[in-house]
């Protein structure tokens, strides 16, 4: 069957009103689900799954893909407006999105988030269609040693999000690594730092830590100084992103999209690290580096491109190998299997019409995301105009509800409040929260992959340099560390040359 025949077969499968309606509904459900803190894209997909059982396979799968894509974008709305990421993938968006909202540029930040998301979505979908086979073969060459070196390299992001003081950033990262060790030991299955409490056996809930670290300190600060915000203008959300902004950030968006495609096609990493990596790369190469973290529109663009770039690419291992890259794609695989479809190489031969139908649906989903996102932003951005004395208590209620809903566990709400105080102290002592979060996500991956590598080789460390992929990441890590050290030395020299008398 030729390429055109395949497209025609696919088109005949999706060329009906139900498919497009399902896709449209899916994106809408996803944007709303993603925008509710604690709901997360994963839960939105899981809750939609039972409704797809009765549908045609292609219709059901398109519905789920719509929810997935909408959810990843929807998470950025509360991240920007109330500093509470709706979905873990959008935690990097907070770094610049919330300061923009504080400056009264919520509309601009949301608009850029949408434009960056849609661009990344298109790039990700095209990569899926054009390079699925090639990237899939790449995905299976990633064993534990390759993962270990990739994550080691990713940890250098910490330098990029530490703000002024690398030392404070490192302190924050250490704290994150420490708290990530709570739970069951991967290799021995023993309890670590659980203090005999069954609630601690599963480790600290990621969303509880996330919301505690970012949203709760804002609330505590408000309690501390109830009138601190009076006089500072936070209105209004009326401004909109300009094409000049988009053009200025275009390079970061494309770079972020490809980072997303690459990390998305390797199973087991997910969207949050990709967003952070994209953000730190954008900051590293940007002309207005100093403005990052203080409300730089390019930072929002880079993070959103990084997480949405993953969304299409996670389908590469799913369709080409039948391997789910994260929890969401694992649920989507379930939907394939309920309909008697088995994702994998054979599917490109047996169900080529479904594959091409999905491709067509995915392309259309970017357009739907743009339309629905525009409408959603118009509705949501007025949240920025709500007076703080009303908004903040409402956010507190949302946080408590959201964290409880993740796992139906009141213990998680306690974790959120404790982390809130930790976050509040960190803000007071100018310790950045982002390195904490990155370490909390990547620390366990680093440890697990290192220990798996050691199990594979019988504790022979030479497995960590076993192939070209590991060499590549070792080299990247070394280069980045050298660059960080040089920049640090130069900064010290610069300040001492400027103000020789001030001893810090």
């Amino acid at each position: 069957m030729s390429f055109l025949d395949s497209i025609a077969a696919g088109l005949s499968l999706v060329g009906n009103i139900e498919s497009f309606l399902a896709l449209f509904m899916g994106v809408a459900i996803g944007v709303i689900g993603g925008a509710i803190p604690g709901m997360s894209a994963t839960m939105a997909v899981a809750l939609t799954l039972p409704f797809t059982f009765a549908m045609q396979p292609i219709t059901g799968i398109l519905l789920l893909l719509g929810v997935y894509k909408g959810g990843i974008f929807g998470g950025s709305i509360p991240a920007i407006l109330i500093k509470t990421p709706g979905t873990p993938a959008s935690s990097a968006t907070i770094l610049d999105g919330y300061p923009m909202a504080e400056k009264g540029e919520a509309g601009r930040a949301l608009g850029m988030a949408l434009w960056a998301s849609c661009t990344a979505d298109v790039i990700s979908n095209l990569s899926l269609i054009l390079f699925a086979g090639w990237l899939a073969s790449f995905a299976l060459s990633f064993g534990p040693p390759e993962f270990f070196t990739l994550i080691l390299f990713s940890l250098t992001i910490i330098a990029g999000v530490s703000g002024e003081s690398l030392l404070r950033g490192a302190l924050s990262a250490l704290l994150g690594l420490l708290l990530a060790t709570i739970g069951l030991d991967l290799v021995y299955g023993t309890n670590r730092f659980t203090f005999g409490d069954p609630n601690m056996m599963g480790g600290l809930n990621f969303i509880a830590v996330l919301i505690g670290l970012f949203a709760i300190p804002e609330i505590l600060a408000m309690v501390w100084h109830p009138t601190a915000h009076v006089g500072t203008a936070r209105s209004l959300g009326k401004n909109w992103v300009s094409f000049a902004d988009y053009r200025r950030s275009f390079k970061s968006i494309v770079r972020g999209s490809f980072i997303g495609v690459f990390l998305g096609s390797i199973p087991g990493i997910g969207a949050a690290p990709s967003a952070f990596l994209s953000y730190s790369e954008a900051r590293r190469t940007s002309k207005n580096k100093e403005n990052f973290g203080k409300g730089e529109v390019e930072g929002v663009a880079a993070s959103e491109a990084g997480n949405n770039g993953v969304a299409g690419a996670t389908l590469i291992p799913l369709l080409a190998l039948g391997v789910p890259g994260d929890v969401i794609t694992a649920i989507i695989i379930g939907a394939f299997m309920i309909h008697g479809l088995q994702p994998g190489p054979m599917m490109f031969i047996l169900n080529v019409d479904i594959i091409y139908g999905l491709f067509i649906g995915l392309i259309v989903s970017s357009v739907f995301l743009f339309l629905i996102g525009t409408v959603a932003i118009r509705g949501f951005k007025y949240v920025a105009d709500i007076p703080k004395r009303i908004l903040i208590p409402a956010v507190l209620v949302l946080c408590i509800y959201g964290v409880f809903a993740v796992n139906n566990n009141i213990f998680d709400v306690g974790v959120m409040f404790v982390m809130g105080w930790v976050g509040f102290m960190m803000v007071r002592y100018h310790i950045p929260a982002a390195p904490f979060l990155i370490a909390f996500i990547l620390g366990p991956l680093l440890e697990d992959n290192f220990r798996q590598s050691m199990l594979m080789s019988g504790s022979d460390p030479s497995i960590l340099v076993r192939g070209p992929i590991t060499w590549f990441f070792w080299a990247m890590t070394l280069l980045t560390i050298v660059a960080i050290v040089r920049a640090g030395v130069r900064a010290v020299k610069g300040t001492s040359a400027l103000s020789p008398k001030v001893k810090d």
Partner: protein
Amino acid sequence: MTFRTLGAVCALSLGLAGAALAEYPERPINMVIPYGAGGATDISARTIAEPLGAAVGKPLVMANVTGAGGATGSVAVQNAKEDGYTMLFARVGSHSVNPAMKATLPYTLDDFRFVTVYEINPVACAVSPSSGITSMEDLIAKVDEGGVTYSSSGVGSLLHLAAVMVLSEFGVEEPLTKTTHIPQKGGGAAATAVLNGTATFLCTNSSAIASFVANKQLVPLMVTTAEPVAGFDVPTAADLGKPALHQLVGWTGIAGPDGLPDDVADKWGAWMAAATEDPEFLEKMTARGSVIELMSPEDANAFIEGQYNTFRKLVDDLGMRIEG
């Protein structure tokens, strides 16, 4: 609707509510799923919830309480009131492998009363085609050469125990020292580890690797059931003369806290009998590779106890118990 019929309907429903007041269930029942949304247990639970809700006549409130290989959710039900309004979707991992392996688990089997087991998942062992292994004999020969590894979804999971049990049944005397366990996070990652050559083989629910087998990405070696499994053209444990391996299957059941009253347990038996008759439920579950086999409360308790004892003996013989 005229005013009079409306009144009649109101009166009727009031009367019904009054009659039901004395009987279980008079309010919605909380159903705890101790594993994450979209996982095998979650899908199974949400699939049965539909016909089951119809049989119960009251809403079932499904809640995922995840963490620590099912322990967090299990503890939530263990500590719940014994009135039948908090029930648990128990799974092989949380309620026979984990209690057999982990000494510090905050619950034991005695803390629960099972009202049913409704789903059985055959276990299959598989290797990657590039390994050159095509039969259990080849695998065991390779084990003697050394360097064989197996993946699992974590320490204390069914996959972990299954690999050890299969090796030990096939005459490998010290499976813990002759082979290496490479635990992964989750069943999907365990299968990927065999695909990309991180581990040599794995033994897992047949449904988890059915698509890899159909796509010839994995080579199946055996299934642990007595009957052949569709899509797996390999010998069964019975064919290989290892009937002890029939115990090695996955299952999903429903349990309450230990002191669950008899009449509640009986009701669940009747509801499950009605729910598992539902043709739509049967079709969905068999499409996913599950075998629907309804057990009465007594049979379910005996079945789980038997499996637990088998696993516990193996764990004790090999010194696999986790004390920390």
